[in-house]
């Protein structure tokens, strides 16, 4: 499941992306690659809870949005160095993950799904109405370009490089987590939670940490999104990101640690290549998801290999 030297193998994505970029492609192609890069981070975020632990958290947009808004506010009001604000936002979303995770993880798995989804929607409502801070439905246009140690950029090629660096760093951390002893604790918690507790693990803490890390990853993706798209509004808390992520994580090959990466890239690029309209893509994803659940729920390996059905 985890090949030798995964850190090397994961470089397939930046190498491929840079190779494409070096052929002098259009702005559109670069844009797609950048979006794929952002989804690579988000897919890791969902995978950590859904693939790794079997927790269906539909709350990823909550952290994505917190990251986006936090970064925007820090950038617009304080003009911080983007590396610094990235670290700050990571901290903020990590804490948010703890805050949201503590009550949510205590609930039954049914309630967990509903509550995590509701947190995201509540944040959308707040973002919509707390106009003083978030500018409500108007959102924030003209978000300044990032500035790292004095170096700033707006062109897409630089953005691609920046995103790829972020991808490599986050995915390296992701691999590290999965291959570490904590990753084994995650596997034990997922494989048989009662046994994990009987053996001595506080599975609540295991889940909480994974949930918080997942939130942090989503928040990091949000910071990149904010600076790249230069516009955010309450829709960053919306469900459309989750739609894409579910397909990426569920269909992205759960037998390998690179599943989220492959899923993110494939399901960002493919719809564009095939020129699907957003509605059609949504329709297709729905059909694929339904089929996946009908045909392969047990074959989705990490996703649903539960030792005991939690009902």
């Amino acid at each position, binding site marked *: 499941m985890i090949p030798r030297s995964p850190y090397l193998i994961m470089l397939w994505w930046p190498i491929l992306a840079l190779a494409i970029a070096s052929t002098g492609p259009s702005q559109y192609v670069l844009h797609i690659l950048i979006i794929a890069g952002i989804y690579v981070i988000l897919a890791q975020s969902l995978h950590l809870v859904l693939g790794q632990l079997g927790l269906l958290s539909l709350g990823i947009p909550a952290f994505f949005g917190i990251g986006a808004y936090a970064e925007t506010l820090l950038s617009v009001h304080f003009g911080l160095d983007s590396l610094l604000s990235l670290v700050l936002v990571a901290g903020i979303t990590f804490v948010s993950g703890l805050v949201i995770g503590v*009550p949510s993880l205590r609930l039954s798995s049914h309630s967990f799904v509903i509550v995590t989804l509701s947190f995201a929607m509540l944040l959308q*409502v707040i973002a919509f109405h707390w106009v003083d801070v978030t500018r409500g439905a108007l959102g924030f246009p003209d978000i300044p370009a990032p500035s790292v140690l004095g170096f700033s950029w707006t062109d897409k090629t630089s953005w691609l490089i920046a995103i790829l660096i972020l991808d490599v760093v986050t995915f390296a951390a992701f691999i590290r987590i999965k291959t570490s002893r904590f990753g084994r604790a995650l596997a034990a918690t997922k494989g048989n939670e009662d046994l994990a507790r009987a053996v001595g693990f506080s599975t609540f803490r295991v889940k909480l940490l994974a949930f918080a890390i997942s939130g942090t990853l989503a928040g990091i993706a949000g910071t990149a999104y904010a600076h790249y798209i230069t516009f955010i509004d309450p829709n960053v808390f919306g469900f459309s990101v989750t739609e894409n992520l579910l397909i990426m994580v569920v269909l992205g090959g759960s037998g390998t640690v690179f599943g989220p990466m492959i899923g993110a890239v494939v399901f960002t690029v493919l719809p564009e290549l095939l020129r699907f309209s957003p509605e059609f893509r949504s329709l297709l994803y*729905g059909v694929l998801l339904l089929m996946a*659940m009908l045909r392969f729920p047990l074959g989705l390996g990490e996703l649903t290999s539960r030792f005991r059905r939690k009902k």
Partner: protein
Amino acid sequence: MFDPLFIAQLLLNGLVVGAAYGLAAIGLTLIFGVLEEVNFAHGELYMLASYSLFAAVSFLGLPYGMAVLLVLPIMALVGFGLSQAAILPNMERPFEVTVLSTLAVAMILQSIVRLTAGSTPVNVDTVFETMTFEIAGILFFGQRVLILIVALLSIIAFAVFLRYSRIGLEMRAVAQNRLACQMVGIDLKRIANWSVVCGVVLTGIAGVTMAPLFDLSPDMGVAIVFKSFAVVIIGGMGSAFGAVVAGILLGVVEAFTTGYGSVAVSEGLFFIIMILVLLIRPHGLFGRTVRI
């Protein structure tokens, strides 16, 4: 500000909306109570009913009543399809699988509506909308009164069905102890189909009665499912009675907070109350002993 007429008006509005919330939520809680599955297509089914009504009224030129009579059997069929495609195959699997399946159906339904009807909001007009009458200074809008009557009738009819029919009995039995029911030979598939179809039809009734009140848009299901979850959780997952009580309570609360406060507060309130209920009393008001 504390004008009794204003309060009475708010109360009435709240009751009307609340009854509809309750009705819609029964559909959701029924499926959860009997089958322990969460139907994430709930909101889109409501939306589908509303849009089907719109299509029947606007394109087929049917009067409201006939349109409803056309839409409800369609909803029953859709419910059957949902049961076959997303719920029955996954009953023995981890429930997250059903969540994802029903979510998939939701995505499919919303896309289909977008592709056929477009994303701009549309409107349904019915004859009841223009009817208003006044009693003791309180305005009664025809459509709203209709909603209240239909909701209450549906709830009563369903309660009778649940209590006195054979299928209703079996549904209640399965809700209590699925394994025992299988052992005595109750056909689980049949019960599952019935539960889902009933749930979807009830949701559909809520959809067609409420449709004329607001603009319809393909993403309206999102807000509906959110509110329905809140109602179901507060009322107690699996309790139809709880869903009605919680629905009416929340409808009234919503009316008052919108009337005295703002829409923002009432939207957030649903969620906050739900979280509080989950933390303090996870069974909700009337829920059965679901694992916390």
